[in-house]
């Protein structure tokens, strides 16, 4: 390295030395960032290596299907797409009800690659979209944190975010969901906001609106941005930090951002009509008032200003009260107070479980448990408080934003597991700041102690002449690479020092350093402990990525003494449906499997994971909880030909339909009151053994799940519920088994055709003719179906 040579040179070369250092620092940060990106990408490939390159879970299958459509038919067809394969017979307007960001992103990547004659399938592009965007997200984190606390904190935060388990859980290869790109968009929007706030540049403000637009395209979580930024603006105003930069950062965002947001079909006029956006408009008014007041204050004399204030306040208050009253009346007149169900359940965590079982039934809408915090953000949970403290030293506009961000996201993550994802970047940023500051302090004090030990007297002398102090500290710095290489192999700490070295070493600084200096031993030990903490975090993240979050959940594996078992039953069933049923057949199942059925089996479903129509879902829930004949009638009226149930009792797959059954009852009963939850419970307990209620044992779900189950082992022992089933031998009268997969995990039943009508017993002789007349009638009723 050239560093020792330059250090021996005289003072005039100091300038070149520093530029060289900066250049080195820049190149090094660039490569570190590149490596962080590579790491963020590759840590998410465990799912491809351990399983296969396949789309995961439920929602990604829908996104994948939409992307396929986009790739095949182009953007205009996509906007106008009316999907008749789902929500039969209602259908769904996909173009107007989907957040198109993810789909358009992947579609664009695919189109770009194909126009370069790199023939990748849509599936491959979809699988790798999430890892690519995690790399982008970690770079965005670097930018954001750099704006807040400098390069060192930025790199630390980027490295932390690249492997935070919470984010990995939503962005492993194959997890092709909105969050995959939305987190990048979220962080990038925040970065541009902070950047605008720091620079006051209208250029960045415009970029910020565009980034916000991308976020609106990508995820419903954009409301978080449009509430958090106004909150921060308000905070700045209240704490007397109003500046023209703040105005530039906020006003264009609201105007341009709202206009752009209204362009997205799924948002449309919601961008100005729903309560989620009111806060931003209110703050928009306030910031103008404040700006106006500052302006008036500037042109008026203090005395005149006081008069004006009293005048305006008295008039303004009256007007404001009137306006607010009208607004409140307007909002209160709507039943949900203008808030969507999901947002309401954020404000009032008990709202969903009280009123909307369909939101409460989704596992990712449940509040998280304490272990899940440790699982998802691990040691960051302990570093966050330190980070918050570091943000206050000193408090700037940008760091106050980070504090606000972490505070709100902690609250939201406490309401819904899913929003842990919003917490993760905030936790990474604050922890990055904490770690970086800690390293700063420790390495600084080690440096100070070492110089103190080697030349104690010189330091005293240095205080008198600043030039010697400069060369002194420089000399120390040049010695340090060897030192650090010995003590701390962590590149974060090295990075930190480099960043530290960039700052001009002044006398004041030396002064300050001495005040903050810690004993040498304790600094070294603390550093080691911090490195250990980081190492623990890395180990945990790799473990989480490899073991916990990589399963695609459509193919399951289990390890036993005789090797690896693969349970590929879902795809077996979907492939069977795809190839061996008529292309227009309707398949009824609980809504969880709707997206997969349309995407993998290409068959029309009654309900799917886009739970927009509660009644329709309740109808299916009612059918599943009804006795066979009633269920048959419901399904027949919906033109259903096949009923699909998921059954884990044979192999012990716990998330099967019997375990979800109470939600079907609840949701069904919410709309059709003749389904009563207590009928299915024995003394408040949900059971399927011989103690179960007759309603339970006679409902369709029970029968379809356990039909001929007893013949497998002679007892009918359910491995999930760990009990023998209550009713073992029964026949199906209105359904027949059409297909059961190898491990019985998916069972498909066919509705029997309706029986021929016999017109009374006296006309028995004419039964033959009646049968011939009834069959055209049947086909006639089928023809009436507009979807065929």
């Amino acid at each position: 390295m050239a560093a020792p040579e330059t250090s021996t040179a005289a003072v005039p070369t100091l300038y070149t030395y520093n530029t060289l250092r900066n250049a080195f620092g820049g190149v090094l940060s660039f490569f570190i960032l590149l490596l962080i990106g590579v790491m963020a990408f590759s840590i998410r490939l465990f799912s491809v290596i351990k399983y296969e390159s396949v789309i995961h879970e439920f929602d990604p299958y829908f996104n994948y299907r939409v992307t396929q459509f986009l790739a095949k038919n182009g953007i205009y067809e996509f906007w106008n797409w009316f999907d008749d394969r789902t929500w039969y017979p209602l259908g769904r307007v996909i173009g107007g009800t989907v957040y198109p960001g993810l789909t358009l992103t992947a579609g664009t990547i695919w189109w770009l690659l194909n126009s370069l004659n790199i023939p990748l399938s849509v599936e491959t592009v979809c699988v790798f979209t999430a890892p690519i965007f995690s790399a982008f997200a970690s770079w965005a984190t670097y930018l954001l944190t750099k704006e807040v606390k400098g390069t060192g904190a930025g790199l630390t935060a980027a490295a932390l975010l690249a492997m935070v388990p919470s984010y990995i859980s939503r962005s492993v290869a194959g997890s092709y969901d909105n969050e995959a790109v939305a987190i990048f968009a979220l962080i990038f929007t925040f970065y541009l906001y902070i950047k605008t706030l720091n620079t006051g540049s209208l250029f960045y403000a415009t970029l910020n609106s565009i980034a916000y637009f991308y976020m609106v395209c990508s995820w419903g979580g954009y409301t978080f941005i449009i509430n958090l930024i106004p909150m921060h603006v308000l905070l700045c105003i209240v704490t007397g930090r109003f500046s023209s930069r703040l105005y530039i950062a906020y006003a264009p965002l609201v105007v341009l951002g709202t206009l752009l947001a209204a362009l997205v079909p799924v948002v449309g006029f919601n961008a100005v009509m729903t309560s989620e956006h009111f806060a931003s408009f209110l703050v928009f008014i306030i910031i103008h008032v404040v700006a106006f007041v500052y302006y008036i204050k500037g042109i008026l004399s203090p005395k005149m200003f006081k008069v004006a204030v009293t005048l305006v306040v008295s008039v303004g208050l009256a007007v404001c009260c009137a306006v607010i009253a009208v607004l409140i009346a307007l909002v209160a007149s709507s039943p949900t107070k203008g808030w969507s169900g999901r947002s309401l359940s954020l404000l009032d965590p008990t709202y969903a479980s009280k009123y909307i079982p369909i939101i409460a039934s989704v596992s990712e809408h449940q509040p998280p448990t304490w272990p899940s915090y440790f699982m998802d953000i691990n040691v960051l949970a302990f570093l966050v408080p330190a980070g918050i403290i570091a943000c206050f030293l000193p408090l700037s506009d940008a760091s106050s934003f980070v504090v606000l961000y972490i505070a709100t996201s902690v609250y939201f993550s406490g309401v819904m597991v899913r929003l842990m994802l919003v917490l993760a970047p905030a936790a990474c940023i604050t922890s990055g700041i904490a770690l970086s500051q800690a390293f700063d302090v420790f390495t600084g004090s080690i440096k100070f102690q070492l110089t103190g030990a080697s030349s104690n007297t010189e330091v005293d002398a240095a205080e008198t002449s600043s030039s010697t102090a400069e060369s002194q500290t420089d000399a120390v710095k040049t010695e340090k690479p060897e030192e650090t290489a010995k003590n701390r192999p962590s590149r974060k700490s090295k990075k930190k020092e480099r960043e530290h070295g960039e700052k001009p070493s002044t006398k004041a600084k030396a002064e300050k350093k001495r005040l903050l200096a810690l004993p040498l031993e304790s600094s070294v030990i603390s550093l080691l402990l911090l490195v250990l903490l980081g190492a623990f975090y890395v180990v945990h993240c790799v473990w989480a990525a490899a073991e916990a979050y990589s399963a695609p959940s459509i193919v399951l594996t289990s390890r036993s003494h005789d090797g690896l078992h693969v349970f590929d039953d879902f795809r077996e069933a979907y492939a069977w449906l795809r190839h061996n049923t008529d292309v227009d057949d309707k398949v009824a199942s609980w809504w969880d499997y709707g997206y997969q059925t349309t995407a993998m089996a290409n068959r029309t479903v009654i309900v799917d994971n886009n739970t927009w129509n509660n009644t329709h879902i309740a109808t299916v829930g009612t059918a599943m909880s009804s006795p066979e004949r009633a269920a048959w009638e419901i399904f027949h009226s919906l033109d259903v030909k096949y009923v699909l149930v998921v059954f884990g009792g044979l192999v012990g797959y716990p998330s099967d339909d019997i375990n979800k059954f109470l939600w079907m009852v609840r949701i069904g009963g919410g709309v059709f009151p003749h389904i009563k939850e207590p009928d299915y419970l024995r003394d408040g307990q949900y059971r399927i053994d011989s103690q179960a209620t007759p309603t339970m044992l006679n409902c369709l779900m029970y029968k379809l799940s356990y039909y001929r189950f007893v013949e497998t082992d002679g007892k009918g022992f359910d491995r999930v519920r760990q009990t023998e089933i209550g009713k073992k031998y029964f026949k199906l009268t209105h359904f027949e088994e059409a297909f059961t997969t190898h491990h019985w995990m998916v069972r498909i039943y066919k509705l029997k055709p309706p029986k021929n009508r016999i017109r009374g017993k006296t006309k028995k002789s004419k039964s033959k003719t009646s049968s011939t007349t009834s069959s055209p009638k049947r086909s006639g009723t089928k023809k009436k179906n507009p979807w065929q």
Partner: protein
Amino acid sequence: MEAWIRARVTLALTLFALLFFVSRSSPPRQFVISNAERRIDLSSHIINVHLTLKVENTGTRPASEVVLALTPTEVDHLAMVDALAIKGKQKKTTSVRLEVKPTELPDAPPIDAKYFTIYLADPLNSGESTTLEVLYVFMHFLEPFPAEIAQSESQLVFYHDTALILSPYHIKQQTTFIKTPSTKVESFIRVEPTNRVGTEIKYGPYEDCPPYTISPIHVHFENNSPFAVVEELVQEIEISHWGNIQVTEHYTLVHAGARHKGVFSRVDYQSRQFSNGASSFRYLLARLPARVHSVYYRDEIGNISSSHLRTNSLKSELEIEPRYPLFGGWKATFVIGYGLPLQDFLFESSDDKRYLNFTFGCPLIGMVVDKLTIKVVLPEGSTDPSPVVPFPVEHRLEAKYSSLDVIGRTVVVLEKKNFVPMHNSHFQVYYTFNPIFMLAEPLMLASAFFMFFVACVAYIHIDLSIRK
């Protein structure tokens, strides 16, 4: 109207031909078949008919064209016909493959029939005789009856034929043996003398049958062999001169036997394997070339985990299992892909050309393919492609773009309908290729990156600010 014109033209042509042939005396009448033996193997859904004919020239001059007759239904299901001439006595026999071509016969036969002509290697002199062995292979020829069966039933099929061989010649003596897969034969039509022993039914011997005599028979018997049919197979062979041949095969598999009806019960299928779903099948075996690598087996929704690959130095066997057992009428699609070392299949010919030598066929053993398409993707920049296939196929050229292609790759597309395993043979595709094209893409990439870096350097050094 058009049909009428066509009929008139045909009539005119026929009349002309008739006049022409009458002047030469029609060739078929020259021969007499002194002995005919037919062995029909019905053990699978591919029907092999071995016909041994002893042909005697009773005409006055040498003749070399022997005509075979088949009914139109047989021709529709005929996958291949092959003829061998047997020479020598008893054990020292040698066989010579003869050319067989479909022909039209000028004289109106008493029954509807189609004809194939065997061209003998050397003309048969008057009074001489020779022995011919003819192999017919039929597919989709067994008719399931009943057409729909439940899971526990076994599959019964009809075989329709005639007890007397349809021939334009006089046959002095003939015998037909029909071999059924099991002893379970529901019914068969007797044409005395008829004899049934074990799995074999013997019709004949019949003496002195005049030309064009038939005697329809059918055999109704149990055949539980898997009626696995590949409806369409698209095989793509991509040659890379960097040392690899990538083969991708897209299958549409169907069970062409009696359709499955009603319930499919997994518990019955799992607990009573033999009595349940006897005609269904689960496993398929593919024989791949030796030194195969990176084999995959998947379908449109992902990897199919039930497969085993066994390799040794001579061959590789891939045992695959579709996602679900196939019952009558059920379908499945899947893709098999694998890589092969280039040097095993690509050679240089003497005239400075390169040629690919590959198997024309379906790697799945014993599989009938309704439509087989082979696409040979030649490397970018190769010219003058010419395929050499031992039997007639349709062929055309296409272009394909992959991995940064600019001018596209030439694709030789070969199509064959009604493919049976007996067709398996090697084919060649000759082309010229200049190795300089191999460097095109790396150079392109390198220059693109170079340009990018140059642009970066330029950007750093350019100052576009208006104010200084």
